[in-house]
């Protein structure tokens, strides 16, 4: 809006803006700053607003802990597998939906739209029973299976947008110049889709990395927990002597990759969500 805002209104809005910044940033600031405080300062009678003399003890304790490392390994394995498989399957489907008109195309698209709306809580009981029957509870493969299914709709959707954006004339021109269809595809189309793969892959990464509900249901063995499940379990397990410094350090570590990736895909996120492309 280019309208000139009257000065007093602008001052008021600016003041409110600073409050907005404070409210949205403060919890994150609190998490990061507490992660550098030693236990006795966190539990002091005074609050420490700025951790000038902070330590890395919490991080050291966290990173050397067996349980954190095991959860990190599981989380990385599930997340990366989910991203790779989802990208591959979604890419094939996106090309089909975008470049061809075929029987069942409409049904496929409608099904994706519907699936997107299914809450994990509406199906996890029977997914649990299914994985139990397949001996896939507490397994990276089992969790990956349900994760890929839950991210596929929006990965297909987003990638399809990218494929739609590539003029098919490009491939056709290359074919006129004597390229085979396959070669035209690999040398022309695929490289141009790189940004699409990055954006879609990052979406899938954030979803799988953050996911809690299905991980809680599928990974019942503490040795197989993903980071989110481990973190929530960690913060409740010692309700009396909770090691808040360590929890804040772990939370910060989990948050860092997400924030970085989020900033990269943020613009698409806003557009994608309203286009129904991403499940919340």
């Amino acid at each position, binding site marked *: 809006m280019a309208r000139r805002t009257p000065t007093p209104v602008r001052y008021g809005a600016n003041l409110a803006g600073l409050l907005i910044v404070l409210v949205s*940033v403060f919890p994150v600031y609190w998490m990061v700053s507490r992660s550098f405080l030693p236990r006795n300062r966190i539990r002091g009678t005074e609050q420490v607003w700025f951790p000038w003399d902070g330590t890395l003890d919490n991080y050291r304790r966290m990173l050397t802990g067996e349980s954190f490392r095991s959860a990190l390994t599981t989380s990385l394995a599930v997340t990366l597998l989910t991203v790779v498989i989802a990208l591959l399957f*979604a890419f094939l489907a996106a090309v089909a*939906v975008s*470049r061809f008109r075929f029987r069942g195309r409409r049904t496929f698209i409608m099904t994706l739209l519907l699936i997107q709306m299914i809450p994990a809580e509406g199906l996890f009981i029977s997914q649990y029973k299914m994985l139990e029957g397949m001996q896939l509870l507490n397994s990276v493969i089992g969790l990956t299976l349900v994760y890929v299914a839950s991210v596929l709709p929006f990965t297909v959707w987003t990638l399809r947008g990218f494929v739609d954006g590539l003029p098919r004339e490009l491939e056709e021109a290359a074919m006129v110049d004597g390229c085979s269809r396959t070669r035209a595809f690999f040398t022309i189309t695929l490289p141009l889709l790189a940004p699409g793969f990055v954006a879609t892959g990052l979406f899938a990464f954030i979803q799988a990395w*953050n996911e*809690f509900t299905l991980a809680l249901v599928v990974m019942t063995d503490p040795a197989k927990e993903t980071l989110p499940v481990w973190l929530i379990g960690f913060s409740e397990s010692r309700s009396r002597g909770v090691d808040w410094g360590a929890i804040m350090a772990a939370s910060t570590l989990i948050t860092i990759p997400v924030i970085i990736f989020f900033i990269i895909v943020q613009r698409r996120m806003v557009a994608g969500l309203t286009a129904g492309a991403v499940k919340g």
Partner: protein
Amino acid sequence: MPRGAPAATRNPLPVGLVIPAACLLALALGYPLIRQVVLSAQEFGLAQQFGQPPAWVGLQNYRDLVTDPYLWKVVARTVGFCFVNAGLTLAIGMGVAQLMTRMSPWVRMASQIGLMLAWATPVVAAMTVWQFMFDTEYGLVNWVLVQFGGDYAGHSWLIEPLSFFAVATLIVVWMSVPFVVFTLYAALTQVPEDVVEAAEIDGAGAWARFVHVVLPTIRPVLLVVLLLQIIWDLRVFTQIYSLQKAGGITRDTNLLGTYIYSLGIKGGEFGTAAAAAMFMLVLTVVLTAPYIRMMIKQEED
């Protein structure tokens, strides 16, 4: 449909390309869905966990559920929580978006960065830090309230349902507002300048301009955001689950998601849990129907 796409062919290639995705979805979602319908018509409790074949009970699980006043309590709580949270999120989001159109550019930039930070924070990380802030002994909230002379030393926020849900609402709204702000702000910048000005010249006050000019223009976006928010707030699970773990009360704080979890995964009553889950699915479908219809229309255009 892209320009120049060939008409429907008998070419097997596109179907082949869709098969991996379709098969995976059929296995991981389609099969469980059928399984759930079957399960919801079976007696599937502890005895079956230990190997007894499940007995067919028809609609008995559903009957048990709907005749249990507790289910209705949970449903009412879920819907209430959903509407309060979606309403608050939308109202605050609209307010902030409006403010953002009136800020100096650098304040607006700062607000956007702050909101993005809150939005990007993983839900579990947000949960731990909010729990820490509301902690009985070392929490910041109690400390601040005590400084202001309140009797809040050692006060537990999670032990009583009303303040439990107040804390949950605070967290959910904190995490949900940024998306609404970004979307509505984008929509607000699309409101045509001259129309607003014309209304002003015609003597319309700020509120009248908002109601009669701005709102109708951004209505489609507003509807989508409201619908998505309702869907998301209906299925809040992580926040409730972890607050329950931290506070210890579950019966008076269960929403549909945690109720299904405690029935099935915790309690081993898979038949009843499956019936409750079907309930949740139907509720979602009913609430999302308008959104789906809109998406389908968009797809066909």
